[in-house]
């Protein structure tokens, strides 16, 4: 009987891993000794970072999604269903439709869920760009604001040293808002205020989650007349008065509250009981080198669901995926693990509407900020529109 590698989640991590597994294990797959199966709750694959561009009227919905099957090699068995329960002791997952699937190796790549409702008043009065519909709502406001105050907040998970979704996104969007308002000719009537919480992973009272970048940000913001505040940890929002209140006791008014909201793992992961994360966030205890889930046999995790200090973004999945593929291949072929993840994250930041800045870092070294330029911007835009889909297919 074929050994089954079951991948949960049809995001970028799961998709590139499924394709890479078939490629790596092709002799076993073609001789039916290994089966690769993907379980996803949607027949569509969404390029999630493009939701950020939706907030600036740069992407239509059909431009940022593809049928999931069109991105998978034909050897992969693809099933659309929602995982309701992980039965780790029985090496099985149970789905909401009533179906169950056994596995020999399991890869959990279920992402995270933006949860503004976890801060009082934020869902009612705040906006974000991490999902399609909220991004459309934000776009309507950004395209029509004539004067007032855009207040930007960033909210970290309560678990120590775990970042919010896509570390660079709040800076990217702040600069994009500035460019957009200048294009619209209303920038001089709209104040932009960027804030960062007191605790940002291992840093305190900074403007970013890495020190080198934090040090250059005041200059970047001052050049654009963007106001900035350290130590604003959002506690609650008064939707009627349009006031954001911090844990440090400050009150700030706003016309648009653009927030990076709290996040959590999906329900099935939280309900599995494996996570030790506070605040019911659900991050799985992850071996930072092998990408196994601590305490479980033959179960791996990647992307947003890990409890590692690296960015919750596709640029992390891209470096974690080959490690998991190599480790499963070596388990099947040699009986032991083979590869280690060094914490590498690679991305191209969108620094305003036109410019881009390639960046990379790992467990040992932080991002070294370089001057953003148009060539970097073209690289990012080409990635958004074309190269991303090659990455998903496991070609890059």
């Amino acid at each position: 009987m074929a050994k089954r590698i079951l991948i949960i989640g049809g995001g970028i991590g799961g998709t590139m891993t499924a394709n890479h597994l078939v490629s790596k294990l092709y002799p076993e797959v073609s001789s039916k000794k290994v089966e690769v199966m993907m379980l996803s709750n949607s027949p569509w694959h969404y390029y999630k970072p493009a939701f950020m561009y939706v907030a600036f009227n740069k992407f239509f919905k059909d431009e940022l999604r593809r049928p999931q099957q069109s991105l998978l090699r034909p050897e992969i068995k693809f099933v659309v269903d929602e995982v309701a329960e992980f039965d780790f002791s029985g090496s099985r997952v149970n789905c909401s439709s009533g179906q169950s699937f056994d596995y020999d190796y399991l890869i959990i790549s279920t992402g995270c869920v933006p949860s503004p409702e976890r801060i009082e008043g934020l869902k009612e009065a705040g906006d974000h760009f991490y999902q399609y519909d909220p991004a459309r709502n934000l776009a309507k406001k950004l395209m029509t604001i004539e004067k007032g105050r855009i207040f930007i907040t960033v909210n970290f998970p309560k678990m120590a040293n775990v970042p919010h979704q896509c570390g660079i996104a709040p800076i990217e969007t702040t600069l994009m808002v500035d460019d957009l308002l200048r294009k619209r000719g209303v920038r001089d009537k709209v104040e932009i205020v960027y804030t960062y919480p007191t605790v940002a992973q291992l840093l305190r009272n900074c403007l970013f989650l890495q020190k080198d970048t934090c040090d250059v940000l005041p200059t970047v913001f001052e050049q654009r007349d963007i106001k900035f505040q350290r130590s604003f940890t959002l506690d609650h929002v008064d939707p009627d008065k349009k006031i954001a209140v911090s844990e440090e006791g400050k009150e700030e008014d706003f016309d648009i509250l653009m927030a990076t909201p709290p996040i959590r793992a999906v329900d099935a992961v939280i309900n599995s009981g494996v996570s030790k994360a506070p605040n019911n966030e659900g991050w799985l205890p992850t071996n930072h080198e092998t990408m196994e889930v601590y305490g479980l046999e033959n179960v791996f995790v990647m992307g947003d669901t890990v409890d590692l200090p690296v960015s919750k973004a596709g640029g992390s999945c891209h470096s974690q995926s080959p490690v998991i593929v190599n480790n499963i291949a070596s388990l099947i072929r040699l009986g032991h693990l083979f590869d280690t993840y060094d914490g590498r994250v690679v991305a191209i930041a969108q620094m305003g509407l036109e410019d881009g800045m390639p960046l990379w870092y790992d467990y040992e070294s932080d991002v070294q900020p370089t001057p953003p330029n148009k060539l970097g911007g073209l690289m990012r835009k080409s990635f958004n529109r074309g190269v991303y889909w090659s990455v998903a297919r496991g070609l890059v």
Partner: protein
Amino acid sequence: MNITNNTELPLEQTNSIRELSPAAQAGLEELIDKVEPLLAGRRLNRIVDVMSITADVVDMTDDYMIEKLCKVYEEAIGGIWNAGNLARMAGSEVRNMEEPPSTWGLVKMARDPEVRRGLAFMIMMAKGLGRQTSEPLPEE
């Protein structure tokens, strides 16, 4: 007007050129030896031209151009990738057959709904080809 032009000063009076190590000095002289004939033959101008054209292309490229080029890229790569995958998978399946299927066996294979869907795809391709060639072209 009091404009200081450093290029008119003797080299030893300027602070703008820092001292190089002997190894670096030797490397620089070697590089100058290499570049000298290129400069004399105006061939280095072509490199400057290439840089200039590259800068022009970067400046001329806009979001709309990126969108169209990337669409072509994705469709080309996706098409080749898909065709390659299908050929590889079909080849593997056929190689694993102990004997080639009989005529009746081929008919039985068509009972598989995925095979029928694939055949329908081929027939729809044929329909598209037929549509593109259905209009007779009259002589001028």
